[in-house]
C-alpha cells in the first residue's frame, strides 16, 4: 500500500502541498533537454505509477487518516499520541497558571469601541468600520498627544444627553410627552450619532479624517452636537410636570 508520506519521499519532493518545489524548476535549459531524453523515462513512469496507486487507494476505501498516515512498518497511527511533542510545562508556567486562575478573564474588546464601530458599520463590514475608527483615533492622538480612547470616552460623556422625552398614551383624547432618563449606552449612542452627523458636513473625502476632526471639535467644545443636547434637555424641562415620581 502506498502512503502519502511514502509518495513524497519516492518522488524526492518536500511536500505535496501548493508549494511543491519540483526538481524540474531548478534546471537550466540544457539540463531540461537532457532530462527530457529517454534516459529519464523511468522517472515519469514513477510519477504515473505513484499517482495511480494513490488514486486507487483513495477510490477503493474511504479516507481513514489512521491508516494512510501510519508510519512505515505500523498498521495504524495513534492519532491521540502527543509524546512526539515532548513538551512539559515548566514550574514557572505552572505558577503563572495558578496565579491567573484567580483573576477574571479580561474583556476581548473595549465595549465603547465596539459600540462605536457598530454605529459606523454598514453592510456588515465591521473590519472596515474599525479601520475608519482606528485611523480617526490615531489622528486625534497626533493632535492631542493623549490616549484617544479615553478622550473619546470623555467626549461622549460630555456630549451625551442625560434625558430624553417620550410620548405616552393616556387613553383619553390627549397624549402626553414625558421626560425619561437615558442609560449610558443610550447616551453614548446619541452622542456618537451626532458626531457622525457633524462629520458628514466636513470637507475631506476621507471619512476617518472627517470623524477625527469632529471628535476634536467635541473635545474643544465647539461641536454642533452640544446645541442638540441642550435642546433635548430644554424639551425635557418643559415637560417636567408630567414626571411621575413614585
Amino acid at each position, binding site marked *: 500500500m502506498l502512503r502519502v508520506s511514502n509518495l513524497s519521499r519516492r518522488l524526492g519532493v518536500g511536500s505535496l502541498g501548493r508549494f511543491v518545489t519540483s526538481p524540474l524548476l531548478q*534546471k537550466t535549459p540544457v539540463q531540461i533537454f537532457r532530462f527530457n531524453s529517454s534516459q529519464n523515462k523511468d522517472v515519469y513512469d514513477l510519477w504515473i505509477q505513484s499517482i495511480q496507486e494513490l488514486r486507487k487507494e483513495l477510490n477503493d476505501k474511504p479516507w481513514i487518516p489512521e491508516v494512510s498516515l501510519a508510519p512505515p512498518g505500523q498498521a495504524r497511527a495513534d492519532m491521540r499520541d502527543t509524546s512526539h511533542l515532548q513538551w512539559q510545562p515548566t514550574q514557572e508556567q505552572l505558577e503563572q497558571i495558578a496565579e491567573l486562575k484567580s483573576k477574571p478573564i479580561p474583556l476581548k474588546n473595549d465595549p465603547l*469601541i465596539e459600540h462605536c464601530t457598530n454605529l459606523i458599520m454598514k453592510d456588515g463590514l465591521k473590519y472596515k468600520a474599525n479601520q475608519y475608527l*482606528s485611523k480617526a483615533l490615531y489622528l486625534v492622538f*497626533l493632535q492631542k498627544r493623549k490616549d484617544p480612547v479615553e478622550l473619546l470616552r470623555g467626549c461622549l460623556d460630555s456630549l451625551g444627553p442625560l434625558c430624553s422625552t417620550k410620548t405616552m398614551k393616556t387613553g383619553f383624547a390627549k397624549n402626553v410627552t414625558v421626560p425619561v432618563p437615558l442609560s449610558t449606552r443610550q447616551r453614548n449612542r446619541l452622542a456618537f450619532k451626532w458626531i*457622525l452627523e457633524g462629520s*458628514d458636513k466636513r470637507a*475631506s*473625502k476621507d471619512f476617518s*479624517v472627517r470623524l477625527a476632526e469632529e471628535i476634536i471639535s467635541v473635545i474643544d467644545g465647539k461641536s454642533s452636537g452640544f446645541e442638540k443636547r441642550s435642546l433635548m434637555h430644554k424639551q425635557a424641562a418643559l415637560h417636567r410636570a408630567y414626571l411621575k415620581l413614585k
Partner: protein
Amino acid sequence: MSTELSLVIVNRCIYFKPSPLGHPPATCLYPILRHPPSIFAYNYYVCHYLSLPSFTTSDQILLFPYIISCTTQYLPTNRSYRKVFLHSTMFRGIRALHTSAASLAEKKVSLSFRKEAKGFVKRSKGPGNHKNFINVSSTTLLKKSESHLPDLKPQNLTKNVVTNFPNDSVKALHHLGSFRKGQFNEAFSRPVSLVRDATIRLEKILQKALTTDSTNTRIAIIGESGVGKTTTLAQFQSMAKSHKAIVFAINNADNFVDGSSDFGPSALDTVEYRQPMVTRKLIKKFFKANKDELNIPLTEDIKFATVKSFGERKGKQQDLAFKAKENTLFDVLNHAVHYRGDLSHCLHFTFSQLSASNVPVFLTVDNFTAFTQNPITAYRDTKNNRIYFDRFEIPSLILRYIRGDDKFNKGGVLISSSGKHKSNDTLSVALGDKSYEPYAKFGDFDRKLAATLQNLEKFEVPSLNKEEVGSLLQYYLDQGIIHNEKTDEINFESFRDNKFFYSSGNPRELLKSCTLNYY
C-alpha cells in the same frame, strides 16, 4: 458667427489669440488639415509661431481633435492630467471641447460610512481639511513628543538601539525625499530608526566604497514589503553624509515610467527622450542636499543659453559660461536651479564632473522595481508605440552606472526594490535567486534588463527578530504611542512575543498594530 483666431505653440502649449485679419472661407483650412506635419515640426527651444487663417466655430471642432492627437504624445499620458490639460487655460479664446452639463458636474464623492448616508448626494464643501488620511497625518503640523535618543553615527553602531538621524544629515535626507508618507514618522518628534544587523553590514560596505571606485559597490537592496528597505537606504544615505560624501538620490523610480510628467525629444546624441520636469526637480533636490560638498573645480566648460520669455524679442543673446578651473560645480548648480531652459545637458555635465572628481559619490535609486515591473513605459512615440524605459535620459544614466560604462572614482550605486510592485523574475534571475526560464514571457522576465542587473550584488533585509521587536516596542511604550494595551498591567515579554507573532517581524505591520489598531 465666425471667430478670428491664430494658433501659437509655445513650449508644447497651444494658445489661441484673436487676429485682426480678414475672413477667408472655412475651406481654406482643409489643405492645412490634409498636409499637417509642417505645423507641428517644432523646435522645443524656439517658440514656433504660426498664424492660421481665421475660421468658423464649426471648423474649430474639426481642427481640435487633430491638434490634440498631434500634441498629446508630448503631454503626460495619465488620463487625469490630460483632462486637466484640455480644460486648462492653455486654450484661450476658444470654448472647451466638452461643455455639456455632465462634464461640468462635480465629481461624485463618497459620503460617510454611516447607515443613513444614502447614495451620492451633491453636498457643499464644509469646514475642515480636504486631504485624505495619509496626507493629513504626514503634513499637518502636529504636537510632537520629545525624545532623547543617540544619533546614528557610523563610528559607534550598537545593535538593537533605536537612534535619531543626526542633525547634520537629517535636513539633507528631507531634501532628498528619503522619509516617506506612511512611515509613521509623525508619531515621533523626528524620524528614528533601529540599528540592525543590516545597518552594520551596510556600514562595512560604505567604508569599503569610500576608497574604491563605484564598480566595486553596486548593491541591490531587496526584501519583503514593509521590511524596512527604504529606511535601510536612508540609514546608508545618512552615514554617507556623515562621511562628507555626495548623495544623488532618486527616491521613486516610478516617476520615470508612469507617464506622470512631460517628455520630449532629447538634444543629446546618446538618448532619444528627455523628461524636463523630473530633471529639474532632481537637480534642485541634489543641490539643496549637497551644498556643502559641491566645491569641486570644473574640468570642462559649460554654457547656459539665454532663454527669452514669450513675446520678448529685443536685446542681444547673452550666454552664461562657467569655465574650467575658475568655477566650481556649486556655481553651475546654483545657476541651474534658477535657469528656465532645458537642464538635461546640466545633469549630464554634473555626472561627468562627479565621475571625474575624487569626492565619494553615491547614486541611490529607491523603488527600482518600477523598471523591472514596467520596462515598457506609459509614454508613446510618434508611431503610438510605447517606449522602452532606457530610451529616456535618466533611466539610461542609471543603467550606465549599474553596467559600469560610467563610474565614480570613489563611491557606489545602490538600488532598492519596492514591495508595491508585482514580483517579477527579472531581478530575481539577475541576482541568482531564481533559475533562468527560457519560455518566460516578456512581462515576467526582461532578458535585456536582467543582463544589466547581473552586475548587482544582493543585499537582503531580513524581518525583525524577537530582540529587535522588543527594543522597538520598548521605545514605542516610552513614547506613549501604544494605547490599545493596558501597558501598566502587561508582562513585557509576553506582550513582545504576542506582537512578534502577529507582525511576523515586519516593522510596518508592527507599527500598524501599535498605532492603527483600536479594538
